[in-house]
């Protein structure tokens, strides 16, 4: 390590250095480095190289943030079209529940537009809306927003909203260095949680998730609730905090858990025409 680099490192959190050093070693050993890193190294500019590298090593390069936004856009497309079609379907949503779903519908469409705007602001082109299949390629045979299918509509709504909450949460890591996007994503994330709570209670369930229970939803939705029965928070087992305070059920309810992009993709792919 050069003196110059050492000095620079001294002002950086040790955890970051460890990550960067690991990644540096990987790159030195032939792992792929972006052209920006290689260009900076070629110019002999260590600080610039470190600046670019630290973003890549930590996973918040601009391209990564855009990837998060495109991923969120896909989920918002899925939800927005679901509610657009549901609200438009004659006889599906009872009059007393319409305000709930017109509200959620409006929010999801605003989220779509906002994400498209954020992606555009990053100099990238927002992905186009795919074609959706709300039968989940046969998981819900015959579902077509029919007047007698409100129960199925509600079930899918709950599954989509609970997935949305967990999906945004799982992407926070990748946004930690982009504060405007992190903050925007969080303000959407908590609105999805409000939606989830309302729809769950409309279905006669608690507004929060107990253990890893999908309640009465179909088996294929279990992936939405997997690992929600986690008791490790900030590296500590917190199950005992439920003693006298609602037991382990309350402990799981008190913390929503993230889903990885891979886990979310597994959940939503059946609803996307052409997806594997």
């Amino acid at each position, binding site marked *: 390590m050069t003196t110059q680099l050492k000095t620079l490192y001294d002002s950086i*959190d040790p*955890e970051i250095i460890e990550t960067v050093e690991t990644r540096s070693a990987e790159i030195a050993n032939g792992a792929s480095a972006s052209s920006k890193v290689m260009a900076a190294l070629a110019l002999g500019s260590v600080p610039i190289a470190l600046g670019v590298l630290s973003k890549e090593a930590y996973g918040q390069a601009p391209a990564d943030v855009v990837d998060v936004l495109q991923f969120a856009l896909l989920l918002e497309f899925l939800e927005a079209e679901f509610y657009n079609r549901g609200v438009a379907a004659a006889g599906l949503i009872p009059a*007393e*529940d319409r*305000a*709930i779903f*017109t*509200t*959620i519908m*409006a*929010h999801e469409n*605003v*989220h779509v537009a*906002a994400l498209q705007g954020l992606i555009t602001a990053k100099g990238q082109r927002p992905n186009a809306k795919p074609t959706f299949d709300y039968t989940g390629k046969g998981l819900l045979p015959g579902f077509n927003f029919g007047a007698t299918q409100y129960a199925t509509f509600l079930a899918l709504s709950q599954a989509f909203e609970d997935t949305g*909450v967990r999906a945004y*949460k799982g992407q*926070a*890591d990748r946004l*930690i260095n982009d*504060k*405007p996007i*992190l*903050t*925007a994503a*969080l*303000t*959407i*994330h*908590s*609105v*999805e*949680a*409000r*939606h*989830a*709570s*309302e729809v769950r*209670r*409309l279905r006669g369930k*608690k*507004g*929060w998730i107990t253990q890893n229970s999908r309640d009465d939803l179909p088996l294929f939705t279990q992936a939405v609730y997997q690992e929600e029965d986690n008791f490790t*928070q*900030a*590296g*500590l087992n*917190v199950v005992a*905090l*439920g003693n006298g*305070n*609602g037991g382990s059920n*309350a*402990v799981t*309810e*008190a*913390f*929503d*858990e*993230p889903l990885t992009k891979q886990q979310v993709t597994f959940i939503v792919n059946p609803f996307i025409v052409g997806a594997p």
Partner: protein
Amino acid sequence: MSDKKTLVISSASQLLDGKTRRDFIRLMGVGGAAIFLPSVLTSCSDDDDNDGFDGGPIGPPNSGAPVVVDFAKGDIAIIQFAYALEQLEADFYTRVVANMSGFPAADQGILGDLKNHEIIHREAFKIILTPANDFTLNTNYGNLNFADRTSVLATARTFEDLGVAAYNGAAQYIINLNNLRLAGKIVSVEARHAAAIRDLIAPKSGSQGDAGTSFAPKAFDDAFRPSKVAAAAQGFIVERVTLNNAPAAFVQGPNNNG
């Protein structure tokens, strides 16, 4: 003591009355005296603030010793800040649950869950902070009548919406990924609470905007800077919550109101 005012309190229930209680607090603040007739002393044991809970000094909000949250401590300060809010919420719902016997059963189920969740949040933060960074806040809800459903739910809504905006706004200052993850796991539960409380107040409402009654009144939740959150919470906290070295920079959320 001719120039000092004296308040005669003849029964414990008088302290439950908002005016008496405000008079009492005001009087104590200017060095006045209150005379407790024996009936009070025999009827309320050591329940200082007459809220149904023994212990805890009475005092108006913002009158006690300072509790310093020093942002120079980095993530510890963010956790302390969240811890203060969770203490407030946990204390509030503990009092609510102790007084909700007249509420509908559906309310009681939800409020009981919220009490448990907030206590669990509080205790998790307490462990993470370790005794070195721990503190205890005392609360003061003014003349809030805990037996009145409308008042209780309105206050709950204030706390839950504030909690959501607080986490959404503070996340930008978090350095450690584990702490960011923890905040993310809690904020969505606070949002679930907020929606449920709002739906109890105005069932199935779609009313949008700052004054909207809907479970989700905006397409984007608020993100408030810590000083804005602290100012709102201070109205219920006896100790003076003092933010030292609070970051000057704040990245606004989409609502641009933090």
